[in-house]
């Protein structure tokens, strides 16, 4: 391939100007004259039967236009994967954020005041807030139409783990706990429902997939898909939290029934309680190794707190089939996974989709094994990590182009480790300057699949129209792909410009409107650069061909279909689970205050493979952002839920990192191994940044203070308790 003009260049994002001038319109910025305002009434309690809902007083309140309950919804079901949730609850509420009804009034305040007047009589039920207790036979049921609280189970068997463990020189058996995490995107959920010029029920909102939202709206209202329209504008972050329904169906219903525009904006508290979280996971690991550090077997049991509803619990759990053992090739693997319903806020999608949790446990297993065998952290990883030709736990060969070894070495060298004569690596020792502090270094390696995989037929649609006479004056790129902040629209424009061989400023993006273009698939699974990117590339190539045939405007487009993956065998989990992976290794230097338990991050090195990055600046941005989300998850973010009630529903109690918490010393180093599927060789890097840092921090803390932690967050209190326990 010749020199690339636009892709791989650090071009500026197209949407940045509008964002820095305040002109970009996020969902809550959109207003129309005469619009009504909606307030959603949440259950506010974790588990109860609904005995009655009396809306009379509320209906008579000032300014109220309508109140919608379950009876008003033609098909009162929703759920991205499994429709196990109601649009409005009428029989039972199962978590505090369950939606009971929608109040629509002239002003926001009137809607809120009227919502207070809705009288719901509840009969409280025993609350299940612990998946271990909820799994037990005879436990109270979250869903009465099910025999128990098991939401999903998965199973994988490769080789014979029990036999291999019996033969192993060393067996390490431990349990790990990773908590819920809140996305805390800065833009709370909001939207405007209205009837558009063509008479469609339209919703302008912030989400992750216009067509998924459309499908769910059409189903609930029992109207044809082409009678619905979903549009996204500027979106204030997503990270998986906007993958499923929040306000979309309620808005569509209200607009459809009232034939008027209806707006809603959630408060931060509603947002934190109202959307799914990163799954809290209990992981029980039993690994066997040879004396030389070769990993022989891994037996893993994963218990996932699915919360009240499925959301994406089954899919997250399924991902553990490959991710539970981390980025390693292990010949004998057994994985049993259980997603369990409780009355906690549901687990949903969150950047990494189970990989951060899986990697946390796997990386610490590797560290424990290394420690017992007297091996260093680098050698054991290099010995076992995936490489070209490796067979995954799913018994399929890893897609070619695995750069993990180079990444581990690059990261190690950058943090100051050095290859020793003979064998082994020496990790640097670091000294604190004060007597009550200790410093340590830790490292972790990871991989993350791109795309859904597991046999799901995947692809993305796009259309490109070329305008001009002799020359292409401008190109229009149509895609539903949402830019949730990751820079997708700029990347797609770059791809088009490259294929069409025109300057970037001649590319216009027409985006995220279901009335204009077909399904791009969601902004999730690190997939848009690859899937939407390939769709745009294909459409541009087709349009160019039409251009050469003198068609004006020349149009190309359609669906790009991803190479197929296969479904996991229900017994063995065997399948071709993914077409592409991202790889990364991160190392961190921490300083621990022995007296207060405070941990400070001093230094981070991240070695990543973005393939042939379309927009290197945005890649770095994604990785930096991901790392800090991982830091927050590991240290300061503490989602406190007691008896199903969320205690930390504000940004003043759920603490994400500020500038004062983040070290200025973050270094990214890159290896560029082209991805065979990605457009121009690009890899999906949306998620990998958030995957390795948490276990690296735990390792670093151990290096500093000699104490192993098996759970996060390592807030000061937990660190002190750990130090104290170690002394006793």
């Amino acid at each position, binding site marked *: 391939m010749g020199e690339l003009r636009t892709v791989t260049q*650090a071009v*500026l*994002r197209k*949407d*940045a*100007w509008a*964002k*820095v*001038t*305040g*002109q*970009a*319109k*996020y969902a*809550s*910025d959109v*207003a129309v004259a005469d619009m009504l305002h909606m307030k959603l009434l949440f259950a506010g309690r974790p588990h109860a039967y609904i005995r009655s809902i009396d809306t009379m007083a509320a209906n008579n309140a000032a300014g109220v236009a309508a109140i919608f309950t379950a009876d008003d919804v033609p098909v009162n079901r929703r759920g991205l994967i499994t429709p196990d949730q109601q649009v409005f609850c009428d029989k039972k509420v199962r978590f505090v954020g369950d939606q009971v009804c929608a109040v629509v009034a002239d002003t926001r*305040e009137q809607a809120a005041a009227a919502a207070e007047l809705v009288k719901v009589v509840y009969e409280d039920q025993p609350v299940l807030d612990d998946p271990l207790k909820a799994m037990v036979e005879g436990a109270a049921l979250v869903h009465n139409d099910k025999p128990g609280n098991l939401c999903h189970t998965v199973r994988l068997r490769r080789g014979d783990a029990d036999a291999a463990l019996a033969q192993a020189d060393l067996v390490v058996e431990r349990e790990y706990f990773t908590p819920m995490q809140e*996305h*805390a*995107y*800065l*833009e*709370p959920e909001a939207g405007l429902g209205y009837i558009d010029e063509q008479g469609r029920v339209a919703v302008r909102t912030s989400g992750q997939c216009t067509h998924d939202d459309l499908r769910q709206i059409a189903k609930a209202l029992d109207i044809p898909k082409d009678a619905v329209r979903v549009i996204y504008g*500027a*979106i*204030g*972050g997503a*990270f998986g939290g906007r993958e499923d329904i929040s306000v979309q169906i309620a808005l569509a219903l209200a607009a459809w029934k009232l034939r008027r525009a209806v707006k809603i*904006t959630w*408060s*931060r508290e509603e947002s934190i309680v109202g959307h799914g979280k990163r799954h809290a996971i209990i992981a029980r690991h039993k690994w066997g190794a040879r004396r030389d550090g070769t990993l022989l077997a891994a037996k893993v049991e994963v218990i996932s707190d699915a919360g009240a509803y499925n959301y994406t619990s089954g899919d997250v759990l399924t991902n553990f089939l490959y991710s539970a053992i981390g980025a390693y090739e292990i010949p004998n693997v057994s994985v049993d996974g259980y997603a369990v319903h409780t009355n906690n806020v549901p687990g949903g999608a969150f950047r990494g989709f189970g990989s951060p949790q899986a990697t946390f446990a796997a990386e610490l297993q590797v560290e424990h094994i290394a420690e017992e065998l007297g091996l260093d952290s680098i050698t054991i990883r290099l010995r076992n990590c995936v490489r070209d030709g490796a067979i995954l736990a799913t018994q399929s060969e890893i897609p070619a182009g695995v750069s993990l070894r180079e990444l581990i070495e690059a990261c190690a060298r950058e943090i100051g480790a050095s290859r020793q004569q003979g064998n082994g690596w020496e990790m640097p020792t670091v000294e604190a300057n004060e007597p009550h502090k200790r410093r340590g270094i830790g490292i972790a390696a990871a991989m993350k699949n791109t795309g859904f995989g597991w046999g799901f037929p995947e692809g993305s649609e796009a259309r490109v129209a070329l305008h001009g006479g002799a020359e292409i004056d401008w190109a229009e790129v149509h895609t539903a792909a949402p830019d*949730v*902040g*990751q*820079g997708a629209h700029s990347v797609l424009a770059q791809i088009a410009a490259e294929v069409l061989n025109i300057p970037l400023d001649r590319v216009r993006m027409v985006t995220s409107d279901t009335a204009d273009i077909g399904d791009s698939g969601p902004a999730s699974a690190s997939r848009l650069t690859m899937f939407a990117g390939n769709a745009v590339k294909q459409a541009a190539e087709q349009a160019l061909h039409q251009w050469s045939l003198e068609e004006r405007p020349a149009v190309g487009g359609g669906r790009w279909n991803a190479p197929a993956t296969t479904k996991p065998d229900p017994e063995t989990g065997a399948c071709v689970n993914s077409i592409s992976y991202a790889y990364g290794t991160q190392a961190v230097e921490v300083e621990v205050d022995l007296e207060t338990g405070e941990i400070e991050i001093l230094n981070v090195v991240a070695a990543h493979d973005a393939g042939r990055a379309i927009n290197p*600046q*945005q890649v*770095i*941005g*994604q990785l*930096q*952002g*991901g*790392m*800090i*989300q991982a830091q927050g998850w590991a240290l300061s973010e503490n989602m406190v839920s007691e008896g199903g009630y969320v205690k930390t529903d*504000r*940004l*003043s109690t759920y603490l*994400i*990192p*500020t*500038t*004062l918490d*983040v070290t*200025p010393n*973050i270094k990214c180093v890159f290896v560029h191994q082209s991805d065979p599927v990605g457009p121009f060789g690009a890899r999906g890097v949306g998620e990998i940044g958030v995957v390795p840092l948490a276990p690296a921090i735990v390792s670093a803390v151990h290096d500093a203070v000699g104490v192993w932690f098996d759970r996060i967050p390592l807030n000061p209190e937990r660190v002190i308790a750990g130090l104290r326990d170690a002394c006793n």
Partner: protein
Amino acid sequence: MNAISVDLMVNGQQYCVETAAHKTLLYLLRDDLGLTGAKDGCSEGECGACTIMLDGQPVNACLVLAGQAIGREVLTIEGLAGDDQLHPVQRHFVEAGAVQCGFCGPGLIMLSVALLECAPEPTESEIRQALGGNLCRCTGYAKIVEAVQLAAEEMNRG
């Protein structure tokens, strides 16, 4: 609902707005004046997405009552630069890649402008210190701090 009459100057223009007594300046700007650049991320002064200048001082608009802005001067992101221009801070946010979802952008930009007005040559540490009251979930802050440093350098070159 009890109404109050709020006379104030916003981005150099005088306004007189009839609005509810309990309304905050943030919602006066967003609802009554259609200036949606300042955002509501938390309604409790924890995220800084609503940062504007009130009589030249950066404040959280969600924590100012509309009535408290009577007779005062407000500068929002929309008023920072001329029609087709960008303030150096805005431009460097764009060029340094400090804009991802951008929701935190207006608030951080206003705060950074205020910082550079009273500390034209801040060290990196001083920048981080000054921006500690604003949250960003996308960028990890590195490129934001870089953007402010570059803006400071440009502005000092004069």
